[in-house]
């Protein structure tokens, strides 16, 4: 008697609950001096649906690479990345990305940028203007809907990019240091706004930053990456209730904790740089 073989791979025990997962992921880049530079080695990460995860680590640790892999903008050399248990084959609007540069299309108005995202997910032409305005109101940009991106301040551009990303109603939002280029005050305001918006939308969020305070303020879980070649070295689950206050003493303690951990990794990076 023959046993029918299933063609569908059975997800492992962890994969069942993970919204987004990386298993045994490694990635190398060719360096300009020849040979390869290892960006990631053997990374395992499971992210549950609706979780806000911050990736933090010294520069060059591969956190951006990991994000690009989840986005489908790059392919791993080894290991696999999955969304809802399905392998990630390429980029798509189910995983919206916020880049460090807002990456708005400069020939489109702010509203047209959002409408473009809506068009890509198949929203009909009649519905687009209203839907776009709805998202722009959420990020307090309704008055600037008809402005061109270059007419906006850095913070406003990043808000517009957030509206565009959210308008796809993605299951997952991937952010690569979106506030890094902003001044400290604007940055705090945007962190608060992001928290507010996210508490409504509750997308699964992967947020890369090198700012520990930002990570602790936003995240359910902070994942610390090692000095290059990057791998995951520690996790801190932040249970503080939301909405959070950036001045919260309890959060400050976690910040100090993670800072200690992070500085060790940064020291390793600096030591390696001096050796060269």
């Amino acid at each position, binding site marked *: 008697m023959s046993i029918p073989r299933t063609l569908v791979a059975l997800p492992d025990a962890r994969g069942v609950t993970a919204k987004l997962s990386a298993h045994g992921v490694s990635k190398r880049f060719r360096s300009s001096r020849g040979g390869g530079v290892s960006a990631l080695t053997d990374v395992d990460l499971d992210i549950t649906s609706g979780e806000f995860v911050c990736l933090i680590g010294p520069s060059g640790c591969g956190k951006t690479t990991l994000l690009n892999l989840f986005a489908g903008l790059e392919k791993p050399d080894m290991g696999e990345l999955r969304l809802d248990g399905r392998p990630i084959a390429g*980029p798509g609007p189910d995983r919206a990305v916020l880049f460090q540069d807002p990456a708005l299309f400069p020939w489109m108005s702010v509203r047209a940028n959002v409408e473009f995202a809506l068009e890509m997910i198949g929203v009909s032409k009649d519905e687009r203007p209203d839907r776009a305005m709805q998202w722009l109101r959420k990020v307090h940009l309704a008055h600037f809907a008809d402005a061109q991106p270059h*007419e906006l301040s850095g913070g406003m551009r990043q808000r517009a990019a957030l509206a565009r990303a959210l308008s796809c109603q993605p299951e997952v939002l991937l952010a690569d240091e979106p506030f890094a280029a902003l001044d400290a005050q604007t940055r705090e305001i945007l962190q608060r706004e992001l928290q507010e918006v996210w508490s409504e939308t509750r997308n699964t969020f992967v947020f890369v930053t090198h700012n520990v305070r930002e990570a602790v303020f936003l995240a359910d879980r902070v994942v610390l990456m090692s000095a290059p070649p990057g791998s995951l070295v520690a996790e801190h689950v932040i249970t503080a209730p939301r909405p959070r206050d950036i001045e919260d003493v309890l959060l400050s303690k976690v910040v100090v904790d993670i800072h200690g951990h992070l500085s060790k990794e940064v020291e390793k990076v600096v030591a390696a740089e001096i050796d060269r």
Partner: protein
Amino acid sequence: MSRLRSIVRQLGPRIAAVVGLLLIWQLAAWSGLFSPSVLPPPSDVVGSFLHNFSQPQPPRESILVGTQASLIRLVVGLAVGVAAGTSIGLTMAASGLIQRSVGSLMAGLQALPSISWLPLAMLWFGLTERAVLFVVIIGSIPAVAIATAAAVRLVPPLLTRAGRTLGARGWTLYRRIVLPAGVPGYVAGLQQAWALGWRALMAGELILMATGGKGLGHLLEANRQLQNTPAIFAVMIMIMFVGMAVEATFGVVDRRVRGRRGLLANP
């Protein structure tokens, strides 16, 4: 008020330069150092321009008709040249192999002044308008192709990445993101193609006079044969006017395209 002032600030120096030139010219003519058949006074030139502008000057056409004929030839030539150059440029941008092969060929052709094609064109097409048209076409193709390829290649990768993460791919990505992002570079290429085409056309018309052919270059040569110096100046002024008008149009388009994208240093 401020609008009027900006118009004065924009036009003032331009008008002053022309008036200054006319003044020096008139003084040189009055000085008696030059015979009027060598350097006619500007008044004669203006008279000739006004007189011949719309009235034919047997056996030749009027300046207006000549301008029309030249412009039609330019538009037809550029239309073909731009279409071909754009297609070649887009394939160059799409494939490294074509960039290296056809691209280097285009770079070589661009170094060749287009008027140097005229002898060949005369052998291939005879002493006809088609030979002149050919020169205009062949002169604009490399400029447009190279500019198009560069415009597409220089599109910031971040914008295409952003487009892809929003779900745009293939033809949609190309049409909605890559092409619009390349427009400023493309406009610069068109501007260069027009300038090359206009120069090649004038040179071609000057050298090759097909029987019954009309055009500003032909008028120049005809007036040389008639030794009508004021009329030569008048036609040259018309050639300059056409150039300035087209350049100004390109200036407006270029400012609009780049202003919209925040690429102007002084908006």
